[in-house]
């Protein structure tokens, strides 16, 4: 999409590729940990490895971005792109961290084994929406489609609603505190945070393309 | 390959021999004249030569009055010719967008190519016919020869002053005429001095215009409206005279004139050297 007519372009392409790599790994981390949580499988050591890779890669992305700033003193769209890439790489690293947190909940507390069906279904539905958001956010790195970025904010609102609805439901129903309740509350909280980060990525893409700072949340 | 190289080398050597021999052939007349003048001129030079005026037949004498007359004539010619030349040069260089500058430059070029005898006759018609043979008439004719030389060198040396310098002055809010006189002229000073010296060297050796304007005079200087003795003219007059002592003085005068012009040339060299440092 961008012609290679400038020296900085090769560097920008490298940054983009690092972010794409991070995006794919992050997606894998979250889908692995959610699948493990829902189906009752231990994924902690596997997700930890992926999360570590993400943290290292985030560092790699930031180093590259700083190098480009030092070498080319970018301005205008290049400057906005690099500023946004730093934010995006942070969000992608957060994906990995939350994936690890979810795996840890299963490890330390429990999964959905003892849960009622409505809880189980609620979490599965929320997980699907969040995974969809992650997928969109990763694709945005490539296609920079601002309509898709806006779409992210729609889904994020739904996730938010589901989050509060779940808490309301729990408070409405007189039930005893058990492992299911504790772990599921923590997981929906993480899902909500992941959705936020997906929206941040959408905002960053919007800024790269239009130069406008907006809040999609 | 090898043959080709050898042929080229031979060609190169032949060419070099040709150039060297041309140079030597060209230098032979110059050096033989110089040698002649030095040998014969040196015999004429003694203390009397510099202190006494033109002698009568068979007496002791020198060229002191001719040196005096020449210096006065050159001085007067410079007083007339240098300001006009410099001002025309400034005009051509600083007002080159003026409609007048093209014709002025053309006339200047024509003037510099004029045969000096014609200039002399001009001076004769204009001045000698009115006040008679005089230093004024000679100086006037010589000034006319000077003007195109001074104009040309002034124009060229002012052109060498970068536009940036003029712009810097204008941008400081300095008026144009002040810029030219106090800044541009300062930058072209060396070139202008060189031009004036060049013109002086040229007119110091002129005899034809002096011949028709100065008239004959073998005494000390006695007024601008009267003739005065002149070195270049002396060489001509003495050399064709039948008197032995005059002919010796002609050689001496020639040597003195050559040394004077040489001196001016060296001065020019010294002055212009700084430009390229």
């Amino acid at each position: 999409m961008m012609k290679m007519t400038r020296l900085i372009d090769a560097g920008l392409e490298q940054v983009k590729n690092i972010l794409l790599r991070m995006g794919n790994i992050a997606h894998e981390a979250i889908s692995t940990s959610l699948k493990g949580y829902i189906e009752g499988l231990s994924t902690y050591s596997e997700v930890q490895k992926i999360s570590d890779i993400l943290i290292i890669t985030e560092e790699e992305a930031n180093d590259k971005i700083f190098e480009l700033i030092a070498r080319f003193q970018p301005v205008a769209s290049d400057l906005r792109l690099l500023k946004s890439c730093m934010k995006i790489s942070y969000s992608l690293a957060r994906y990995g961290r939350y994936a690890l947190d979810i795996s840890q909940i299963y490890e330390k507390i429990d999964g959905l084994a003892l849960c009622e069906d409505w809880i189980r279904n609620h979490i599965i539905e929320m997980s699907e929406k969040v995974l969809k958001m992650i997928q969109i956010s990763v694709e945005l790195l490539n296609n920079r489609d601002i309509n898709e970025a806006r779409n992210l904010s729609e889904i994020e609102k739904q996730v938010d609603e589901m989050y509060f609805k779940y808490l309301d439901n729990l408070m409405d129903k007189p039930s005893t505190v058990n492992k299911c309740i504790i772990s599921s509350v923590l997981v929906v909280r993480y899902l909500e945070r992941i959705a936020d980060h997906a929206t941040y990525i959408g905002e960053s893409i919007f800024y790269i393309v239009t130069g406008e700072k907006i809040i999609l949340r | 390959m090898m043959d080709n190289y050898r042929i080229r080398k031979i060609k190169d050597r032949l060419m070099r021999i040709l150039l060297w021999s041309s140079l030597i052939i060209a230098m032979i007349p110059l050096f033989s004249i110089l040698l002649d003048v030095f040998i014969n001129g040196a015999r004429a030079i003694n203390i009397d030569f510099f202190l006494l005026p033109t002698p009568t037949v068979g007496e002791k004498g020198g060229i002191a009055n001719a040196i005096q007359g020449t210096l006065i004539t050159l001085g007067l010619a410079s007083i007339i010719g240098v300001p006009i030349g410099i001002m025309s040069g400034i005009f051509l260089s600083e007002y080159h967008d003026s409609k007048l500058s093209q014709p002025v430059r053309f006339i200047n070029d024509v003037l510099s190519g004029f045969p000096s005898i014609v200039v002399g006759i001009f001076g004769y018609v204009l001045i000698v016919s009115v006040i008679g043979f005089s230093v004024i008439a000679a100086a006037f004719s010589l000034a006319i020869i000077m003007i195109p030389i001074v104009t040309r060198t002034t124009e060229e040396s002012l052109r060498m002053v970068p536009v940036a310098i003029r712009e810097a002055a204008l941008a400081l809010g300095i008026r144009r005429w002040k810029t030219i006189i106090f800044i541009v002229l300062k930058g072209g000073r060396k070139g202008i001095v060189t031009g004036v010296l060049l013109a002086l060297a040229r007119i110091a050796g002129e005899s034809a215009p002096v011949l028709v304007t100065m008239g004959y005079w073998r005494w000390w200087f006695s007024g601008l409206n009267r003739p005065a003795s002149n070195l270049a003219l002396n060489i001509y007059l003495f050399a064709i005279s039948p008197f032995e002592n005059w002919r010796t003085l002609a050689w001496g005068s020639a040597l003195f004139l050559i040394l004077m012009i040489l001196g001016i040339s060296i001065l020019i060299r010294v002055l212009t050297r700084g430009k390229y440092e």
Partner: protein
Amino acid sequence: MNRQKLEAELSYKFEIENLNAWFGSKQVLKNINMKIKEKAITAIIGPSGCGKTTLIRCLNRMHETVPDAKVTGRVLFNGVDVYGRDIDPVQIRRKIGMIFQKPNPFPMMSIYDNVAIGLKLNGVKDKRKVDSIVEKSLRMVGLWDEVKDELNKSGASLSGGQQQRLCIARALAVEPEVLLMDEPTSALDPISSAKIELLIRELAEDYTIIIVTHNMQQAARVSDYTAFLYLGELIEYGPTRQIFENPKNELTEKYLTGGFG
């Protein structure tokens, strides 16, 4: 209300209205309209031949010193049109100093005379006054300590960066209100350039500065406002931060990111 409006107008040093300029039949500036803030640094950027230099040369009426040059439009300087009927361009140039691309100290003139000449030729006779202005000007450009013991040496004996500072001191000596700078560091090494940039920033405390530069980073570093000129037209003009972070015009964006050609 009225007073506020008046003050807002007064804080503009220049108001350029419908300015057009030609060299012969070639139009180099097309209908420029811009207001330039007082005691701020305005940078003019754009590709070669876009009219940057011509624009600033129209402000102090240097443009017309070139044969065949023509100007139309108005340039209000402190509210007065410099192209007005009774305006003497020489008086305008005394109030608007200019620094050129290549340092151009007067040759055959000492360091002292280079700074003093503008005063002397503009009629300041008092030697003590000239001395004090020369010192003050050289101090302002940070050259005094370097040259105070050799004021009689030729201006050309200084290094390139020192020469350019000397030229700035020369311009300051006639006490202008504005300094126009035409790529003042393009002939200098990076360290000398950095010194000049710092100096420009310091001078902006007291002077209105307009700097033409090829070097976009220099414009970004040094200026408060940036104007982008392209093919004789003012494409975009605004606070430097906005121009460099978030230009509104696509041409500006392309030029800044090097996507031209």
